[in-house]
């Protein structure tokens, strides 16, 4: 098989705070082929967003990538010089954030922000840049794009703002878009539209997507592959159907059980007991063992992320669900 578009291996990003070292990302492996959609799932604080930022080299102090490798289309991104990284960002790898109200600059017009993003990577006149911006606003489903170019972010609705952010991400026809909870801040009805739009765009343009979310329901009808993160590590990854239908890690199982699905009315949702451990004080061995019903003495050592023979799903558990005894 040829080299995938993106291969992350052993990526570790730590935050050196006064209270101690927070291992937000501690040995993450991911792989993504061109045109595929990967759902990166985890609770808040699991390190999924930091993973996204680490790929782009956008980790702010006191955080730092301390190890591992990010290979993108044959180039190693960890340790790459700032200028080369900048040239990749926005042009070949783009990013969409959670809350467009926070990310778009409130005092610049949409058009102005599109011009800035375009000119970051190519010499282009204002008129031409605006024309490109107008085209893309149309592509992401924004009506009367001419008017929107002159608008300030606060004059647009939440869904409209997120479409603008997506349009900006698409400006240079990137190979990969990292979308960090792009629908979380939106109304449920708008969420569906944006999901639909992204899926359409991905199919039409062949862009690969990493969709970071805490919501398994969102990725279930979007992603080709799913990686579940817990306390800075991938605990289960594989094709979406396999992971969703036959979760093997107790944590994935717990997440799935807490999604309201086809349940009789009045039935109680299952909950994972306890709460996400502090990244400063992770338990020895498997990070999940303190919340895990299946935990045994063997769990005091860290399990490897491995796939059972013949299975497409890799899991980080000493005693995965459904394993032969």
């Amino acid at each position: 098989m040829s080299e995938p578009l993106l291969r992350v291996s052993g990526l570790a990003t730590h935050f050196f705070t006064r209270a101690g070292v927070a291992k937000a990302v501690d040995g993450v492996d991911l792989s993504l082929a061109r045109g595929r959609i990967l759902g990166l799932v985890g609770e808040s604080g699991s390190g999924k967003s930091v993973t996204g930022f680490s790929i782009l080299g956008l980790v702010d102090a006191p955080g730092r990538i301390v190890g591992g490798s990010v290979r993108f289309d044959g180039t190693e991104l960890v340790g790459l010089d700032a200028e080369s990284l900048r040239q990749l960002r926005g042009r070949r790898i783009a990013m969409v954030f959670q809350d467009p109200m926070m990310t778009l600059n409130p005092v610049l017009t949409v058009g102005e922000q599109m011009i800035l993003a375009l000119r970051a990577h190519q010499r282009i006149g204002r008129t031409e840049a605006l024309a490109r911006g107008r085209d893309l606003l149309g592509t992401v489903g924004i009506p009367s794009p001419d008017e929107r170019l002159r608008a300030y972010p606060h004059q647009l609705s939440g869904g409209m703002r997120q479409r603008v952010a997506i349009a900006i991400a698409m400006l240079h026809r990137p190979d990969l878009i990292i979308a960090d909870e792009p629908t979380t801040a939106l109304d449920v009805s708008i969420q569906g539209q944006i999901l639909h739009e992204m899926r359409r765009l991905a199919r039409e343009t062949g862009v690969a997507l990493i969709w970071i979310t805490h919501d398994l329901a969102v990725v279930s009808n979007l992603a080709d592959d799913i990686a579940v993160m817990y306390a800075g590590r991938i605990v289960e990854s594989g094709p979406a159907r396999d992971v969703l239908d036959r979760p093997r890690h107790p944590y994935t199982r717990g997440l799935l059980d807490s999604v309201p699905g086809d349940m009789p009315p009045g039935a109680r949702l299952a909950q994972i007991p306890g709460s996400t451990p502090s990244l400063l004080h992770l338990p020895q061995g498997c990070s999940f063992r303190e919340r895990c019903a299946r935990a045994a003495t063997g769990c005091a050592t860290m399990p490897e992320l491995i796939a059972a023979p013949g299975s497409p799903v890799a899991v980080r558990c000493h005693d995965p669900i459904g394993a032969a005894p």
Partner: protein
Amino acid sequence: MLGFVIQRLLQAVLVMIAMSILVFVGVYAIGNPIDVLLSPDADQRIRAETIARYGLDRPLWEQYLVFAGRLLQGDFGRSFIFGISVFDLVMSRLPATLELTLAATLGATLIGVPLGMYAGYRPNGALSKGIMAASVLGFSVPTFWIGIVLIFTFAVNLAWLPAGQRGATAALFGVEWSFLTVDGLRHLLLPALNLSLFKLALMIRLARAGTREVMLGETVRFARAAGLREGTILRRHVLKLIAIPLVTVFGLELASTLAFAVVTETIFSWPGVGKLIIDSISTLDRPVMVSYLVLVAFLFITINLIVDLSYALLDPRIRRGRG
């Protein structure tokens, strides 16, 4: 937008009226108003005449109306010392002060904002720490003392620049300006620097605080993720975002710089209105004091008004919100 402008204009007029009452009470009602109008050596007959002429025997509110009426006509009385109309006297000194104030405020902004932005961009760098330490000094050290040190260093010891006066001037729109000649510029440099140092420290602090906050925000992260160059991010995104507090302070400081010009003008013998008021205080030339106060109050209110209006231009949220 129009409603907003009208509302602000009305407010400004109200404040101006309040200020004129304060000045009136301050200078006319405290102490003997006759001293304000006549030099001390006037005889009894002239005193009685003046009391009648200015209606000093009438109730206070009537006197205020007369006072305000004269102000509106630009009649501030005559200077005891110079014997000419105070209005003309102040106006002849005003360009020197405006020139000095503008040079100082502009200089402080043009130098202070980039320095502050740098210090906010790299808060832990050695240069940033140096900039911040200097700004603490700029805050603490009184203006007059900095002026003395500047004169001692650049005029006395190094003899690079003159220690006082305006130097050669050239006319523009019928007014004499120092910045149009090389000699005038050399004279302007030290006093402008002296007057600007406090504002410089202020601008550095504000720009730094604003930049730090914006740099940690999502807007910058998004811009970085789009591959914008750091320079572009600072110039286009950050500067625009921190501009609003900076413009406010620029305006307000322009006004307080006018006040501090009193000190700088005294040290550097700069022939502006600040020097004029200090001289008039020591010679008890009260009509000059009154007109200076009214003028400064007027400038203050005008500047505050302009700052308010430029808010609306800078921040699209306000423009639409109150339009």
